[in-house]
């Protein structure tokens, strides 16, 4: 597990370094993910250890968002009065956006071979 964790952190560091040097606004971990993806491609797959650790981390992804989610209940009073707008944007906006992107993805993939 330790080795696998080192691999993940090293690729994150690699990503952060690249982002810092090239001054691109993309977060380091996302670049790290792309770099590891390429590395896995060259190496032809992840070790059992790395697969296990990443599966563990990903299965608890929601936990990592929990503290930030709690923040929505502790907004400053100047924001609190706008909660209907915030809620409307989150529910209606997300719903419409999902319908739109789903229809778009379906249309695009259907045209490309009809295996949708």
């Amino acid at each position, binding site marked *: 597990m330790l080795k696998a964790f080192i691999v993940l952190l090293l690729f994150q560091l690699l990503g952060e370094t690249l982002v810092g040097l090239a001054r691109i606004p993309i977060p380091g971990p996302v670049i790290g993910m792309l770099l*590891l993806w390429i590395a896995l491609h060259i190496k032809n797959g992840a070790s059992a250890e790395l697969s296990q650790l990443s599966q563990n981390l990903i299965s608890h992804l929601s936990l990592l968002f929990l503290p930030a989610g709690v*923040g929505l209940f502790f907004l400053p009073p100047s924001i609190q009065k706008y909660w209907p707008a915030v809620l409307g944007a989150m529910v209606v906006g997300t719903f419409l956006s999902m319908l739109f992107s789903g229809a778009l993805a379906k249309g695009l993939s259907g045209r490309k071979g009809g295996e949708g």
Partner: protein
Amino acid sequence: MNELLHHAQQFWLGLQHKPLFGLLLSLCVYQLALMLYQYFNRRVILHPVTTGSIVIALILNGLDISYRDYLNGNQLLYFLLGPATVALAIPLHQQFHNIRKLMLPVLITVAVGAVFAPAIAVGVAAIMGGSDEVLLALYPKSVTTPIALGIADIIGALPGLTTGVVVFTGVIGSLLSPVVFYLLKLHDPRLQGIVLGLNAHGVGTARGFEINPTVGAFASLAMGLTGAFTALIMPYAVQMIN
């Protein structure tokens, strides 16, 4: 006796400000919320982030602990978002044969969808009378928290509101996904993954892995691409609009 009580009180006050308390609170409440979620066959309405954050908010209020102290205690969880994002490379690699076939539709959907998602959200909030502060925080609502925080910083949005909106957009997106899939007759796990990752980022991706590995991998891909694309164009777009 009085001295003992005083001592206990001091001890409790000290404990509140230590990371141990906030982190343990998150882990315990999340574990219970997860058990509840699993007991009810993973009904999205009982998403552990929803039930968990409500319970934690109530506990913090009841014990009179500030959100800032609680958040400081949870730096470790926030830090783990980094390696967890990198870890998404593994399912991406495992599903590569699937992804290669759909690369072009994925790219186009993400590029268009990543513009549409914030536009419609900001539009709805503007119609409902949201202030400029609120509108700003909604721009990065569909990208994963670390990216959203980076964007919020650049465009000058409130970080607390931004992360809260992002997380609950993820929960709401996961919650609405069965309805959306039903309405669009979207049965292809690859396309379901794209919709989840694009609109509900990490929370939707976690939900995707619960459905099956293909949905999860496509959600990871769409999440990563949406995040990267949004991070690249959003600061310029907001500057142009305002």
